[in-house]
């Protein structure tokens, strides 16, 4: 870093906010170059005289650095290497660091020679809307031919393909006053608000505080004093490298803090970027102003640059952007660039002023600057750089050449109204500066150049007032007192509107998307007159720079075509993001396995140790099956299912939703929520319940237990646990607020395990204490408390598999102890743990419906549960369940299906057809290979239902080209008399 390097040709010996004592080396397109701390990539490149930094989007024209900030349209780079490479980074905002590796974009094979520059010669055939018009037919060509070709040719940069090694995080901040932008207005606003005692956040996208002050040596003392004063205020949080990108409802703003983008890699335990959500009582937008371009032929040539940018490079970075400069301006403020360039060592500056001779021009002349009043630039010539500027008297014929390597352009300044506009603050036209300015809205105000108060002193005064007013509105009335900048009169910022030089050649209004004045006029001729339509047709202002430099110029060209004043045409609506942000920052912590929280049961570790394959069920991870070494999935599932049918199995059912319901009206509440009755349920007994939605469709099912007269324990399906809770909350809070009911989720309080199979009782009897499990003492649907291995348990005699079964629930912290004890007790019966797949197999064999059948489109009658409806009394869904469409006897009803050739696979989703017919009679909802009947079976919803038992149909699955002969049967493949569960 400290190796001796020769001073780059365009770097001044002194001046600016760079540390010349330290030299940084970096690479650009493979070439090793040097810069200093305080440089951006752009300033370091300009110091070395680098002119072309990219190729344009459509015509692949060579492009140079155009601005000195985030409004940059041209100078985009991929920065970093490998997985850390970030495309489309604005060189003008990228803080230089030791070892930076940057690559230009959108050129092939190299910057100097680009194969697609031929597009420029073909421009006549590539007008606005070209893609829409040309690639219309044949439609089949889109995917295979047109789109890949367009994507290869277009595109902006390449994303890294490896996983990002860095981490990103979210963060939330609150404040009384948020000040966006730390220029003269922002610094003054933050200090005024801070000194009043308010909690202040000052967000600045740049790595230095100061904004326009950084290019203004006259006021450097004031800038330092202000930043020091802010640092001393404990209630002001300064956030450099933080871009506020969006303004949302109720003063919530989004911001990206680039924590470590200025380092080769983030320090340990530090995020690369932080996505801030800032909630502010009051907001001061001190976002400054963006200089606008003028449309003239060749205004995109490398060597053409905004006047303020040339001044910033000279004053802030000590970099001379060109030795023989022309300034093309319609305003006096831009004359400051003349001084800056002269001071930085330019050989000559010539001013082409569109206006008659004015005070600034006259003053420049007295200093020996050549000024051409009433003139305009009609061309910028050169190959890979700028050689000469062609000018003429305004509107005249012909022209003359001015030898130049730098053309500075200033068409006036637009207040940076993006955030104000996003917040729906009304915008007003200010004819003095020919730009839109924001008004105020509740909780926010703009200050300084952001509302057209140009000039350091005016902006600072405006900022101080805005900061004080914002603090007062937030309840902090103390008046601040500090000095405003002195010395240096503010320039006159009124402009004579001047948008376009009418002459032959491509005049760009959007440099990044290669939109010309001709494109805007074409859009108008083709009927896209509205600014929003013209924008979309031409893509004007839709690039990553959001039209910050040429947006209003394009609107003015459209206005001229329409014969309207530009303020009547207006600007397209501004939307987030003000500047692009990375996806990594949006995702933050929640990527890969952290995308959503993973819920684990208390037996998760046991399942892992046992080698379970897991299945996602909502946010839960559930064991699907437990394969033995080398065992195929179906073999494991059938083995587990067979263990339950023949002896005993145990399944973790902790994920079922569980709700504790209490209150004097608890039973009544359940009667209204479920289609069947619970008020008649005895204490210590469970009952299966079916819940409908308001529209009459089945919502959820589960068992509910009465623990006391006023106390119930409800279970729901795993999938619907949250929704059932919401359903209950909705009815308790809004429909029947008079009921005395309290309920809460106890899903995580209780672990639950199903012990099922002919040997279930023998197994549990060995370990359950304090409860007689004998059928007479503890019949089907009985519930009782007991202990097991010293742990409290609640035993439910319920069955999903169709076998003799018990569900053992225990406070979750005891789950592992209880589980292990049952496994140990069942060892003599060769107990097997079984997963969700075997659970599904068993319930399909038994004909129990689950999520695939209760899919929101089925009624109770469809799934054979119509008899559950209570005869007396209302319940949710009763009225709408009586609709004709829901009671139509032709509706598909639940049936069983078995493959005629048992080994022939059938698939869920297959349609059931009569042989030779293409009319669907129904569909397969659930299928499985089976243990007891053997072979492939399933549950289906079939028009005709039970009347079709014994019929043979085709299960057709056209996506796989399959048609399988199946026989329709009862859905109860196992124990239709229900004898086993009562054994």
């Amino acid at each position: 870093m400290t190796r001796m390097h020769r001073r780059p040709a365009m770097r001044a010996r002194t001046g600016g906010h760079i540390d010349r004592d330290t030299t940084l080396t970096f690479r650009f397109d493979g070439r090793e170059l040097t810069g200093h701390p305080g440089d951006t990539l752009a300033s370091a490149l300009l110091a070395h005289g680098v002119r072309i930094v990219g190729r344009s989007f459509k015509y692949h024209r060579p492009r140079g650095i155009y601005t000195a900030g985030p409004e940059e349209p041209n100078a985009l780079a991929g920065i970093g290497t490998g997985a850390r490479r970030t495309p489309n980074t604005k060189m003008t905002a990228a803080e230089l660091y030791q070892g930076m590796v940057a690559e230009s974009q959108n050129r092939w094979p190299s910057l100097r020679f680009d194969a697609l520059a031929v597009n420029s010669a073909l421009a006549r055939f590539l007008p606005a809307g070209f893609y829409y018009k040309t690639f219309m037919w044949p439609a089949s060509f889109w995917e295979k031919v047109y789109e890949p070709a367009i994507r290869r040719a277009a595109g902006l940069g390449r994303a890294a393909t490896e996983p990002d090694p860095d981490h990103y995080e979210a963060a939330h901040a609150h404040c009384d006053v948020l000040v966006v932008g730390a220029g003269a207005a922002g610094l003054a606003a933050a200090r005024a608000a801070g000194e009043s005692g308010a909690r202040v956040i000052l967000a600045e996208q740049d790595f230095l505080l100061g904004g326009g002050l950084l290019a203004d040596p006259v006021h450097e003392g004031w800038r330092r004093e202000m930043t020091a004063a802010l640092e001393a205020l404990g209630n002001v949080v300064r956030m450099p490298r933080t871009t506020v990108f969006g303004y949302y409802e109720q003063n919530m703003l989004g911001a990206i803090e680039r924590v470590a983008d200025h380092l080769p890699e983030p320090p340990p335990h530090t995020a690369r970027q932080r996505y801030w959500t800032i909630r502010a009582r009051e907001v001061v937008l001190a976002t400054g102003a963006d200089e606008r371009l003028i449309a003239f032929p060749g205004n995109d040539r490398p060597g053409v640059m905004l006047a303020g940018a040339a001044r910033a490079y000279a004053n802030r970075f000590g970099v001379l952007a060109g030795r023989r400069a022309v300034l093309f301006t319609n305003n006096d403020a831009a004359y400051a660039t003349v001084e800056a360039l002269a001071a930085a060592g330019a050989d000559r500056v010539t001013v082409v002023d569109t206006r008659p001779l004015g005070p600034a021009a006259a003053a420049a002349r007295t200093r020996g600057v050549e000024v051409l009043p009433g003139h305009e630039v009609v061309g910028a010539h050169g190959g890979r750089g700028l050689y000469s500027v062609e000018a003429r008297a305004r509107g005249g014929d012909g022209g003359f050449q001015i030898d130049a390597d730098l053309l500075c352009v200033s068409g006036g300044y637009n207040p940076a109204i993006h955030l104000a506009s996003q917040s729906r603050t009304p915008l007003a036209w200010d004819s003095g500066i020919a730009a839109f300015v924001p008004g105020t809205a509740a909780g926010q105000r703009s200050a300084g150049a952001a509302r057209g108060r140009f000039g350091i002193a005016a902006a600072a005064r405006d900022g101080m007032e805005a900061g004080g007013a914002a603090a007062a509105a937030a309840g902090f009335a103390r008046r601040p007192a500090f000095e405003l900048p002195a010395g240096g009169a503010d320039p006159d910022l009124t402009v004579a509107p001047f948008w376009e030089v009418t002459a032959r050649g491509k005049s760009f209004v959007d440099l990044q998307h290669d939109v010309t004045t001709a494109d805007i006029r074409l859009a108008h001729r083709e009927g896209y007159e509205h600014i929003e339509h013209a924008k979309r047709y031409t893509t004007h202002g839709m690039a990553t720079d959001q039209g910050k430099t040429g947006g209003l110029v394009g609107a003015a060209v459209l206005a001229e075509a329409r014969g309207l004043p530009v303020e009547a045409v207006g600007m397209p609506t501004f939307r987030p993001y003000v500047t692009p942000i990375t996806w990594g920052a949006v995702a933050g912590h929640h990527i890969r396995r952290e995308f959503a929280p993973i819920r684990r049961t208390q037996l998760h570790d046991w399942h892992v140790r046992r080698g379970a394959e897991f299945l996602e069920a909502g946010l839960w991870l559930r064991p699907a099956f437990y394969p033995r070494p080398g065992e195929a999935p179906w073999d494991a599932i059938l083995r587990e299912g067979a263990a339950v049918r023949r002896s005993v199995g145990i399944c973790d059912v902790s994920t079922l939703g569980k709700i504790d319901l209490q209150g004097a009206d608890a039973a009544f509440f359940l009667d209204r929520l479920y289609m069947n009755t619970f008020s008649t349920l005895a204490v210590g007994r469970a009952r299966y319940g079916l819940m409908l939605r308001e529209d009459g469709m089945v919502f959820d099912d589960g068992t509910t237990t009465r623990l006391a007269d006023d106390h119930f324990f409800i279970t729901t399906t795993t999938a619907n646990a949250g929704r059932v809770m919401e359903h209950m909350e909705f009815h308790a809070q809004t429909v029947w607020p008079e009921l005395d009911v309290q309920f809460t989720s106890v899903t995580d309080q209780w672990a639950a395990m199903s012990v099922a199979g002919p040997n279930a009782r023998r197994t549990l009897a060995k370990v359950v204490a304090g409860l007689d499990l004998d059928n007479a003492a503890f019949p089907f649907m009985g519930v009782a408390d007991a202990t097991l291995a010293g742990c409290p348990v609640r035993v439910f005699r319920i069955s999903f598999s169709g076998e003799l079964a018990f569900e053992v629930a225990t406070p979750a912290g005891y789950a592992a102890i209880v589980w292990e004890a049952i496994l140990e007790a069942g060892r003599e019966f060769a107990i097997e743990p079984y997963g969700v797949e075997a659970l599904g197999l068993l319930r399909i064999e038994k004909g129990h419906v689950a999520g695939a059948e209760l899919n929101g489109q089925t009624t109770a009658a469809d799934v054979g549960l119509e008899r559950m409806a209570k005869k007396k009394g209302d319940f949710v869904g009763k009225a709408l369940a009586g609709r004709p469409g829901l009671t139509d006897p032709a509706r598909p009803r639940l049936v069983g299906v078995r493959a005629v050739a048992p080994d022939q696979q059938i698939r869920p989703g297959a349609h059931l057809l009569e042989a030779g017919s293409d009319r669907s009679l129904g569909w397969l909802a659930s299928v499985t290979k089976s243990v007891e009947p053997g072979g492939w079976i399933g549950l289906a919803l079939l028009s005709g239902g039970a009347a079709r038992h014994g019929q043979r149909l085709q299960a057709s699955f056209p996506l796989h080209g399959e048609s399988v002969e199946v026989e329709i049967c009862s859905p109860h493949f196992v124990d239709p008399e229900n004898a086993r569960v009562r054994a």
Partner: protein
Amino acid sequence: MSAPESRPAPEPRSPLAGHLKPGRHGAAGSRPLVLREVPATIVELAARRGRAAELAAAVRGALALDLPPPGRGAAAAGATALWIQPDTWLVVAPRGTEGALAAHLKGVAGAAGSVVDQSHGKTLLHLAGADARAALGKGCRIDLDPAAFGPGRAAVTQMAQVGCVLYQHDDVPSFSLIVPSSYAIPFFDWLCHSAAEFGYEVP
């Protein structure tokens, strides 16, 4: 139904068992955060309709604990009550005999309150240290600044997609965080991630 007589239950297993790694983690710094799990008894107490005053009086009489108003917690010897929703509180106490606090509270509340033991269903974490607010701020949308929040304040909110009850104990500041046990691991992982920048210690 009444629980059968039995010997004391074994020690329950934490959902974070094997996941909490005691020691110093994250960045080296002079003032690490302290992050630990606190074994606790947590009981949800809800007033029956229209009987909140009666319940509050009963609890005050038996536990010398004032059920706090919305947004607050109240601590008494041996137990802290946190407001979590209208007429509903979490009563948090050091872990004791299984079910004992719930049974005691049911006895105190009688027909004026509904009592649900959530000791296993909820996991209590404790985070303390000068940078605790900044660490929590990476997921917590609530303003934790002393001007807006402080000792005695409680909130029910979401952090890192997980529903969480938050309670501030003191000006250290130290916070209790109560999350559903099935979410304990992802929540703890997020919290560790958020605290790593400041360095943290798991005792």
